[in-house]
């Protein structure tokens, strides 16, 4: 297999794992006000992802770094063309991080409630922006020899916004299920109810997204030409249905596992549909950024392949250990005894 294809797969995996892992942090964050009725509830919710959220966010930096190292031309154009969207994303991620970490550092109700509101807003916005950005990448960007002919407002087209809503609902359900699994008592039940209530709209938007993609993008072409790959969107749909099925039966851990699979497969559906493009041009296919015309040299890709083959499994191994250490449900006493933990 050509190294560009290896890196295309790895690129998809890095984004998919990022969305799966930060997706539940963003989702729980969005629902902080809805699920957390009391200050203690909200501390418990923050504590559910406290030990892991930082490490989860690094998948984004690794996805960005991998884009830079493996597909520098795509990195350069993607990041400069989407300037304003990425700027808002950066601000939101900074505000979210600081609000999570510093919420418990000042003992004043107004500070805590401000941080809570900041977490809610700064979790909703990245989910929406990631969706809008990827919706536009699936569609392609208006670019040619002269450069980019779009603007921030042109990203807010119907398909981009629909993908944004899809991501928001996807992460909200994902986060609600995570909260249901990681907490107990009334809080867990409330989270489970929220997941069940959000699931039908998510299903509706997902169906709309799949249908709209047929007209707004060329994602379907790959699946129609190579039907074996149609397994990817089919598994995505099956996983989404499983979320609803297990959610309705109250089997929250299974529902959360299905929701992890959904996030992974939705990402793969979009990215595999792009192949061999990374960003198609809507003006002239000759100016599409593909994995072949935007990649690094074989030498660099070779070095990076060795590096990734050693490091990515190592990272996954120690992350699994950490999730095991913190596998217990978070109880109120957990946030009351350890002053550092929010």
């Amino acid at each position, binding site marked *: 297999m050509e190294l560009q294809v290896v890196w295309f797969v790895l690129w998809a995996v890095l984004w998919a794992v990022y969305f799966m892992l930060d997706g539940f942090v963003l989702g729980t964050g969005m629902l902080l006000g809805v699920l957390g009725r009391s200050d203690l509830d909200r501390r418990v919710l923050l*504590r559910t992802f*406290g*030990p*892991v*959220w*930082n*490490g989860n*966010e*690094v998948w*984004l*930096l*690794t996805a*960005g*770094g*991998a884009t*830079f*190292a*493996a597909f*520098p031309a795509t*990195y*350069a*154009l*993607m*990041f*400069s*063309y989407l*300037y*304003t969207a*990425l*700027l808002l994303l*950066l*601000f939101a*991620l*900074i505000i979210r*991080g*600081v609000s999570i*970490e*510093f919420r418990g*550092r*000042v003992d004043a109700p107004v500070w805590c409630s401000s941080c809570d509101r900041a977490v809610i807003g700064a979790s909703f916005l990245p989910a929406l922006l990631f969706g809008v950005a990827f919706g536009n990448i699936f569609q392609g960007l208006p670019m040619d020899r002269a*450069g980019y002919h779009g603007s921030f407002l042109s990203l807010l087209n119907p398909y981009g916004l629909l993908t944004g809503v899809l991501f928001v609902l996807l992460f909200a359900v994902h986060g609600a299920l995570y909260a249901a699994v990681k907490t107990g008592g009334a809080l867990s039940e409330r989270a489970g109810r929220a997941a069940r209530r959000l699931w039908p709209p998510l299903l509706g938007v997902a169906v709309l997204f799949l249908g709209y993609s047929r007209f707004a993008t060329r994602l379907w072409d790959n699946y129609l030409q190579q039907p074996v790959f149609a397994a990817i969107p089919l598994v995505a749909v099956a996983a989404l249905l499983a979320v609803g099925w297990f959610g309705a039966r109250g089997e929250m851990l299974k529902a959360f596992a299905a929701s992890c699979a959904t996030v992974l497969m939705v990402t793969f559906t979009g990215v595999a549909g792009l192949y061999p493009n990374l960003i198609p041009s809507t003006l002239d296919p000759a100016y599409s950024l593909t994995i072949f*015309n935007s990649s*690094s*040299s074989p*030498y*660099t890709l070779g*070095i*990076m392949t060795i*590096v990734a083959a050693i*490091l*990515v499994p190592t*990272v996954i191994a*120690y992350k699994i250990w*950490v999730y095991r*250490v*913190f596998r217990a449900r978070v109880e109120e006493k957990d946030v009351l*005894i*350890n002053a*550092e*933990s929010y």
Partner: protein
Amino acid sequence: MDVLTLSRWQFAVTSMFHFIFVPLTLGLSLLTAWFETRWVMTGDETWLKMTRFWGRLFLINFALGIVTGITMEFQFGMNWAEYSRYVGDIFGAPLAIEATLAFFLESVFIGVWIFGWDKISRKMHAASIWLVAIATNLSALWILLANGWMQRPVGYHLVSGAAGQVRAEMVDFVALLLNPYGLVKFFHTLTSGYVVAAFFVMGISAWHLLRKSELTFFKRSFRAAALFGLAGCVLVALTGDFHAVDIAKVQPTKFAAMESVWETQRGAPMGLILLPDEAGERNRIAWLNIPKLVSFLAFRDPDAEVRGLKAFPRELRPPVWPTFLSFRLMVALGLVMILVSLLGVYWSGKGGFEDRRFFLKVVLWSLPLPYIAGQLGWIVAEVGRQPWIVYGVLKTADAVSRSIETAQVVASLAGFTILYGGLAAVDAYLLVKYSRKGPL
């Protein structure tokens, strides 16, 4: 102002702000790890209290280091797209390795350390802060190898692509790893971070000692930090000296600007008091000249030839004033810090240390010095490299994104300034609050 100027300002603001938090993280992670190790080894509760107290300040600082670091990776693509396209084949690799090797490790194990007190054994807990410390240090290694490549590009060749676009491609990864410029710069930056942490701990300890609160705790903290700081100061000076030799060899324009040497000459003297005159291409004032010192420091040979700025066309010279002045001030601050940490080591080992009120006040007010010296060092490194973004290969003016507009960068620069201003206020408030509170 145009996109280029604004992007330069934005990079300066965001990277200098990021670098407020990085050096303290580098050093304080090691000190905290050392304190916790002592606790695990001895069972002495003072060491545990030290771990918790300094660890809390470490965490406040660390959180800001992380969030402001994300900006750095995004900015290369957002504002410097031409740069990213041109050098991504070689520059992207160390950044991606940094994220996968180091950033994951520190971000994952910091969570274990904060939340794992009652979940894992003492030894595992101490091991997790060691992993954080090692990872932050490794992180610096990859970032500085990347920066070292911008300063002294090695292991690459230029290739013309299909569309006629030229780019740099990596041909020798090992050369990138063993780039002496990058490695010396790494040790220089790393040890300067140790000095920041040492002066941070010494300064806060001095504040408490002046109030005679928690004497055992803060004397022990002071002593550990003073030893660490003295070792750090000496290493910063040594690596700085090696670094200057490298600069003289591979970045002659930067070196000439650092020393404000205009004429090419053998046995170049060092003027202790100089007043550069950029327009007139000379030093308006040059007093107290020490013969042959610049030649000796740069080339280890008092009669070596030093190329002056006039040997290079004006458009290839860096701005002399900021480079020269930052370098001078950095070195002067370094000398002050060596003296302070030396006296700190000497007096903190003797009785009645808490009564040396004047010295303790000096130490308290010295807390910002290594921070300032570090920022000045980066001004020398980055301003002194101009007009190049990759020395001798690519100019900064050719590296900026073509697709972004002035209004976008005005908005982003304003946004960063406001947001970072707010973060600075919160950070200062929290650090002061928890420093004053003392161990609990």
